[in-house]
Every structure is written in structure tokens, then in C-alpha cells.
């Protein structure tokens, strides 16, 4: 597997996966957000085709779907990395050292918050409060909370779990 394989394949989005979701929410008012959430669970992000499909199936305008999808921080309109690191920048974490964590990951992986590394391995997200304030500063790697992080520890963790093809050049 080389890094360039990542987007080369560009496999078409399988829209049929959405059918059960539409069935579950059919006729429910205000179901747009839960449907977007389920769609993101399925595809890991919200592909344009899926937004279009949701608009058609719910009989609402694409502009509304897009407006909602971009309003909420939870939704991603671009493919995300194989691994997702969330660094909590809630107040408790912030005062206990989140900025240093962010800088460390930025430098090591050459990626800014909200971005994915070029090799598609890691997405870095900075979020406000995951509610683990007592474990500040807290990070979440692929859904697993890691509390009381220090930059060195975090980088060690990441080096263990995330292959790092795009970083060598610097």
C-alpha cells in the first residue's frame, strides 16, 4: 500500500446503504440532523452525492441540507483520515496544556487542525470539551479517550498507531 493509492481508487459511494436510514426516519419531522449523523456513521464523512440524495429523499432543498451540514461541527464534508485524533481544547484542557499538544502534532505530522495528512492517515481535530475535564488535557484517538496527555506521550502513542508516510521529507 502506498500513500498515493488513497484517492486514486475514488470508489463510488454506495448510496444504497442509506435506504435503511431513510426507512427508519421516514415521516419523522426534523429528521435531517439524525439522518446526516447516520450517513456520517456509514461513510465516515458526508459525500456530496449523499447530501444530494438526502435532499431528494426528504424533499428539501440541497441548500438547506448543505447549510445544516456545514453549521454543525460534527459533520465533515471531506473524506477523513484513517485515524482521527481529537484534541480537546475545552477550558480545563486548555489551561492544562492543550496548545502544546496541538503544536506537537502539527509539527510532527505536518497537518493543521481540521486537516488530514496528505497520505490520508491522520485527521487532526481540535474540539471544545469532550467532557473529560478531570482528565485534562484529554485527547481522543479513534474514539478512545486518552487523558492527562503530554506532548511526548501523545506523539509516542501516535507513532505507534499511525503510519507516517508523508512526514519523512521534513
Amino acid at each position, binding site marked *: 500500500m502506498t500513500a498515493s493509492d488513497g484517492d486514486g481508487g475514488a470508489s463510488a459511494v454506495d448510496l444504497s446503504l442509506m435506504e435503511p436510514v431513510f426507512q427508519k426516519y421516514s415521516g419523522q*419531522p*426534523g*429528521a*435531517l*440532523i*439524525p439522518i*446526516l*449523523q447516520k450517513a456520517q456513521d456509514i461513510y465516515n464523512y458526508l459525500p456530496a452525492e449523499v447530501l444530494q440524495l438526502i435532499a431528494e429523499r426528504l424533499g428539501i432543498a440541497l441548500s*438547506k441540507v448543505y*447549510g*445544516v451540514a456545514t*453549521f*454543525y*461541527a*460534527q*459533520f465533515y464534508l471531506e473524506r477523513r483520515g484513517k485515524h482521527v485524533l481529537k484534541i480537546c*481544547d*475545552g*477550558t*480545563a*484542557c*486548555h*489551561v*492544562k496544556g492543550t496548545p*502544546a499538544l496541538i*503544536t*506537537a502534532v502539527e*509539527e*510532527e505530522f505536518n497537518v493543521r487542525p481540521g486537516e488530514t495528512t496528505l497520505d490520508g492517515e491522520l485527521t487532526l481535530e481540535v*474540539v*471544545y*470539551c*469532550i*467532557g*473529560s*475535564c*478531570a*482528565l*485534562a488535557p*484529554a485527547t481522543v484517538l479513534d474514539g478512545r*479517550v*486518552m*487523558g492527562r496527555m*503530554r*506532548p*511526548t506521550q501523545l506523539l509516542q502513542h501516535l507513532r505507534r498507531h499511525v503510519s507516517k508516510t508523508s512526514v519523512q521529507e521534513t
Partner: protein
Amino acid sequence: MGEQTNVRIVEDAALTSTKDLPSQWIAVCMGTGCVSSASAEVRQALIQELERHGLSSQVEVRRTGCFGFCAAGPIVVIHPDETFYTRVTPADVKDIVEQHILANRRVERLMYRDPVTKVPIEKWYEIGFYSKQQRIVLHNCGIIDPENIDHYLAREGYQALHKVLSEMTPDQVIDEVIRSGLRGRGGGGFPTGLKWKITRQTPRWPKYVICNADEGDPGAFMDRSTLEGDPHSVIEGMIIAAYAIGARYGYIYCRAEYPLAIHRLQVALDQARQRGFLGGNIRGFDFSFDLYIKEGAGAFVCGEETALMASIQGDRGNPWPRPPYPAVSGLWGQPSNVNNVKSYAYVPHIIRLGADWFKQLGAPDNPGTAIFALTGMVNNTGLIEVPMGITLREIIYDIGGGIPDGRKFKAVQTGGPLGGCLPEAYLDTPVDFDSLCAAGAVMGSGGMIVADETTCMVEFAKYFMRFACDESCGKCPPCRIGSTRMLETLECITAGLGTLEDLDYLRYLANGMQKGSLCALGQLAPSPVMSALRHFEDEFRAHIEERRCPAGKCHALITYEIIADLCTGCMVCARNCPTNAIRGEKRQPHVIDPALCERCGLCKELCKFDAIVVR
């Protein structure tokens, strides 16, 4: 106030009932905090270990909600001894079972030690962290399995509902809540009963009951812990509210960032429905109500009730001007009652024990307890429930155990990004809606963050303003543009480019935002900055006039230096510096090139010899 001595956590006899508990059981905290610290693994290990010893039927391993003392998690409590083990790992399980359960010998190394005397403390309620607490909303947390409705029922659960349905008219329920003096725990402190009354009086149907569990304050997790630890109390409160105002359906709007809370709520709703507490003709009475969870999708502004309802409707979370208030025109234009998680959680207790019981708790005009997520630069971080009227000092020093490493207290922020900070001089302020407000801070929904001398108040203020910018919905110009301008100005100051006029500009912007913004987010977003400016103006001035960050936090105003005498030339810093700003020969003192240094602080953290300092 404040004469409390070792009050038991579950202090009120009326609330306590242990009749259904097995003689010996082990509570394992399964709140998010402890789960993050691998408490699930500990629980699994305990079950296996007990099984190995053939004790499965005698000793119950119970998953419970949050004990509050998250800093010490994972927490395991052995009942009936009430021995409190902290930071338990799966590896410790063998000792717990073999020593404590089988040999009745406490595992001392796992017990919490007094931070000063270093003496192990046995019972949980003897720990300083719990000393001044009074747990009403949290009284089931740490005791019951939140995924087991029988546990809740065994603790007088749903009795208030039964009482309401069998004995009280909706108006009587509302009167009782009004008489109790309960004020909304979402931050505003509006009388809950009055809100219900207005919603009841609006002659349009359907009506909705909505629970605001969109706890977006960074640094707050009261609602999460309540939902995770005792979801039925909130559900029961909502059913009673629905009965009182005449609603058929309700929603709990919960942040998607709280998957465990949502899971527990879902389990609780299913069980409640199964037992006939939700659905058509509840418990055979002529009253029907059902409740659904709506997951938020990551927008702080959705904690604002009108934005929250927009979000439930599937729209962008833009707030709407009030009036009309939700009680008149809310969800889908219908009368709607929106309360915070904790407000609902109080209701079953008030109904069961009476308004008079509730009124005598806490402070005058501010009855009841307050729940805070105590975090930041304090030894005992965690979730606390204290009587209204307790002072900030008691919370920070008696419960929180003071500031770590002997550093100096600087400020305490309540109300999160919409609140304010108070300096040392205000530490004896009683904690209640009115006193905090008078002191220039707010009660907020329950975040309490302690800052010490290493916290730069300008940076702290900037942090909150960045948060406000990120979370502004963008609908109205004062907030959308005003917050941006405030942030830019603060960035200027922390970058060492500020002028004294900038301070006036900040005040001007803050005033404009407060007066002009549509919703509380915009109106209150300047508060952290303004309170910091009020109490710590000299720190702002130091950034501007002396180009200096007294706390050593603002990158542009500090430099990292290596103290040659202490440097051993181990090269760890140089190897790890992301910008290769550190040079030096092996075993020779190193130097940092300030031009290359990004001030990430990695070197200082890595240095085993404390040779790197901030200037």
C-alpha cells in the same frame, strides 16, 4: 454557614434506602471519566476474578454512574465497607478480591491518601473532596446501576410520578414547584414553576417538554454525569413537567459528544416505556407522554433554547429573537417548556419530599444545591454538588484541595465562556445566583475553572473569545463581527502589538455586543474578557506597556532559554525540537535559537534537569 463536618454524602435520610442492595457488592464507576481511565477493563477483571473464586453469586459487581472524583479514577468502592479505591487498574483486581473480599484486608496502596498527612482514608465520605458536598441530584450516582431501572425504583424512583398522577392536579404540581423556589439550573435562574405555568396557560396544543442537555461549556460535565449516573431522575422530572403543562411529547436534546449519556438515556427510556412510565395511559392513568432523544451535532449555540429548538426541527442552530418566548411559541411554533437536565432532576425530590423540604436547603431565594464541574488548576478535579450559599473558598480549598504544587491561586471562572472570573478578593463570595451576579460573575450552568499564577489572564480571556468566535452562529452582526474584532484585538495584545487604546476598543466592542446581540451568546461572550480586564487590568497593561507576559504563556512575549549550568548536553531537547532550534555538542550546554524557536515548550517538558526556563 459552613459548619458542616463529615456529612455523609447521602445525607438526607428520606432519600436513602438500601433495602434492595446485596450484602456485599462492588461499585465500579462507569462514568466517562473513569471509562477513559479503563474502568471497563477493571470491571471485567473483577467479574472474572470473582468467578474464578466462585464468588459471583455472593458479590455483585455493579456498574455505577460518576462518583465525581474523576481525577482519582478509575474508582472502585467496596460495599458495605464503603472502602474507596482510586486509580485502580486491572492488575490491582487480584489484590482487591483476594485481600479485601476474601481476607477482609484493605488494600492500602489503592486507598486515597490525605494530600497533607499522606494517611490513607478509608471511607469515601471522609475524603476532603466529599466533605462539604450535599448530594441530591447526584444522590444515586455511584450507588445504582444506571442501566437498571430496578435500582432506581428501589431508591424511591418514580414514586413522585405516582404521587402526581394519583393525587395531584397539574395546577397543584405547578404550585408545588413554584413554592419550592426552584430556579432553572441552565444558568439564567428563572423560576422553573413560573415557566411551567406560562406554558400551561398558553391555549394551544400540542405542547412540548424539552430537556436541554446540550452542555456545551468547555470545562463542564454536570449534565453528562447526571444523565450517565441517574437518567431516570431526569426522565421522571420531565414526565411530571409534561403532566403539569399538558404535553404529549418531549425531547431530550443531548450533545452527540456524549455517547455514553445517550446510550444510558436510551436504555432508560426503553425500560421506562417497558414498565409503563412512558407511552399511552401511563401506569393506567389518563395521561400519555412519550420522550425522544435528539442528538446535537456540535454547536455550542444550541444550548440557547431557541437555537436548540431550531436544531430539533432539523435547521441550522440559529437563535430567534424572544419574545415570543418558547412557552408561547417554541418548537414548531407550539408552546414548549425548556429546562436544564438538573432542573428536571430536582423535581421528583421536590414532589416527593415537598416544597418546604427543598426551600430549607441552600440559601434564601436560592434554595437547593449547586452542581459544579470543578476543573483547572485545582488538586481535586471532579463533579461536586454543594448547598447554595457555600463560598468559593470552601469549594476550591476544602473540596478542591487547593492549587497543585503549592502554586498561587489567581482566579476562578464560573459560567464558562459566557461567565466571568473572580480574583482572590472575591473568594468568600457565597455561591448562588444573586451573589455571583452581584460580584460580576454568573452562576452559569455549572462550570468552575480555577486558574493559578501560571495562567495568563489575557490569554485566558482570548481563549474564551476564540471559543465565542468559533461558536457564533453568524446570524447577527454584533456577535459575528464584534467577537471577531474582540479576538483580533486580544491577539494583537498577546502578540505584543497592543496599544492602550485597544483596551478602550475592547470595552467599546463589549458594550456593543452586549447591547446589540440577538442571543445570550453574543450578549455574554464579552463577559470573560471584561471581567478579566476589570480584575487583571495590570496584566493586560504588562502585555502592552512592557511587552511582557507575567504568566509566561504568550508565545510572542516569551523566550525559552537553557540554563547552561544545569544543561548536561544530553541532546534530548535538540533531537526532539520540531524546528531544530536547539544546537549544541554532546555533553556541552545547548542553546536555543530564538529566531527558529516556535515556543512549543516540548524541550522544557522533556528536560529531565529543569535546565530550560521561560523568560
